[in-house]
């Protein structure tokens, strides 16, 4: 008898939780759960009016999020500005002591560039990648343990394409993974889902750069078992996926606990403007 009554209590509590509306509640939890499941099932429609509506919703939410986050972004920017200011003297001393003959280095680079162009012409290699980049402003900097991405203020309307490479000054930082009408999402190279083909120079070894949620470092996958990669070798995009242009510097090799990592050149926490490949 008592088992039956406790089972009845349990069922009443469950029914009450799902169906009962509170004094100021307009919907029952059951109704909202059904709506949520319906909304979630719409994720399978990647084109058409549903996709356009989703794109519009995302644009609106990103702008709202930008407004709410702006005071915090302002404080963060000021903090990094202060840090930069404090490190300025030290950086200046290091640069002063370095023997940087920039003029001769530039001439050397120009020579290699023209030689490379000549050799490409000889083997009749066509450059499939665009060299045009557009400058975009970062609306949102979303870096949590689950997601390392940024939202930029240019979208479909401005010609942003899915998969386009994104650079911070000279350095690769990520690729466009979601394009809305007025904004786009860039997945940073440090994100767990980021996998990009790279080449390590001067050893010429190809591998896949895989983010693992760390802002400074990324892992290398599919490296040959026997390799002679040395510390401080430079990692460039290889362009072998046919989407991301080749030869964009990403970072340099560092050894940590007998494992090889790539230390990014760009500081993902201090991004304000980035360039998107057109």
């Amino acid at each position, binding site marked *: 008898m008592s088992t039956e009554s406790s089972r009845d*209590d349990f069922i*009443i*509590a*469950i029914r*009450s*939780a*799902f169906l*009962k509306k*509170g*004094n*100021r*509640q*307009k*919907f*029952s*939890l059951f109704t*909202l*759960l059904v*709506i*949520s*499941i*319906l*909304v*979630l*099932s*719409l*994720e399978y429609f990647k084109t058409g009016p549903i996709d356009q509506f*989703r794109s519009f*919703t*995302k644009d609106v*939410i*990103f702008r*709202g*999020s930008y407004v*709410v*986050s702006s005071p*915090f972004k302002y404080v963060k920017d000021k903090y990094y500005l202060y840090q930069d200011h404090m490190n300025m003297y030290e950086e200046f001393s290091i640069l002063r002591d370095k023997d940087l003959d920039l003029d001769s280095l530039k001439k050397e680079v120009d020579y290699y560039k023209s030689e490379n162009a000549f050799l490409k012409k000889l083997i009749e290699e066509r450059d499939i990648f665009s060299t045009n980049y557009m400058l975009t402003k970062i609306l*949102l900097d*979303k870096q*949590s*343990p*689950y*997601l390392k*991405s940024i939202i930029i203020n240019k979208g479909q309307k401005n010609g942003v394409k899915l998969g386009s490479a994104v650079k911070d000054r000279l350095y690769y930082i990520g690729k466009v*993974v*979601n394009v809305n009408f007025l904004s786009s*999402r860039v997945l940073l190279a440090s994100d*767990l*889902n980021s996998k990009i083909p790279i080449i390590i120079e001067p050893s010429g070894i190809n591998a896949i750069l895989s983010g693992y*949620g760390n802002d400074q470092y990324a892992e290398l996958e599919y490296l040959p078992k026997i390799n002679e990669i040395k510390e401080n070798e430079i990692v460039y995009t290889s362009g072998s996926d046919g989407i991301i242009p080749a030869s964009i510097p990403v970072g340099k090799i560092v050894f940590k606990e007998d494992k090889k990592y790539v230390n990014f050149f760009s500081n993902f926490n201090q991004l304000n403007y980035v360039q998107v490949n057109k």
Partner: protein
Amino acid sequence: MAKGNIKFYQFLLNGFPIILLFFFALTGYSSPLQVFKINITFNFIHLIVFYWVLRKPDMLGYGLIFFAGIINDVVQNLPIGISSINYLLLCVIASFFRTRTLVPNLIYDWVLFLVAILIVSSIHFTLLSAFFDGNIKYGTLMSTAFFSFLVYPLVAKIFNQIYLLGLRQENVE
């Protein structure tokens, strides 16, 4: 002028859970800290939803929780609707415990919160890995749930004080 200020103050106190919920949904803030090389993050939305639905359900509408979930999905780049399901399930669990509890007790709520977020996090992980190709770290998800569980008593105390402030303000009027 003074009356206007008081009204605004009361509006802030009454709308506190809603303002806080939408603030965290829009910014996606998780207060990342690093202590002894351990990344500590909190899921503030879980804390807000569970506390207010369990203790003061009239102050936070289910419809608003649903919308906060949609916003959170857009900001966090998750399939749209998944966070709404999570938050609403958390509401179901909190609402169920509310009907079964006679005398509110912080320790009891704390343990129930652990049970609730473990269920919700597991469903979140299962949905993402079974139906969507989202690569998600199970360890990070669980550590966030664990750290959120640890701070629950403190957050509950703060929320309770804010609720009492609101009540006091209403009584003054």
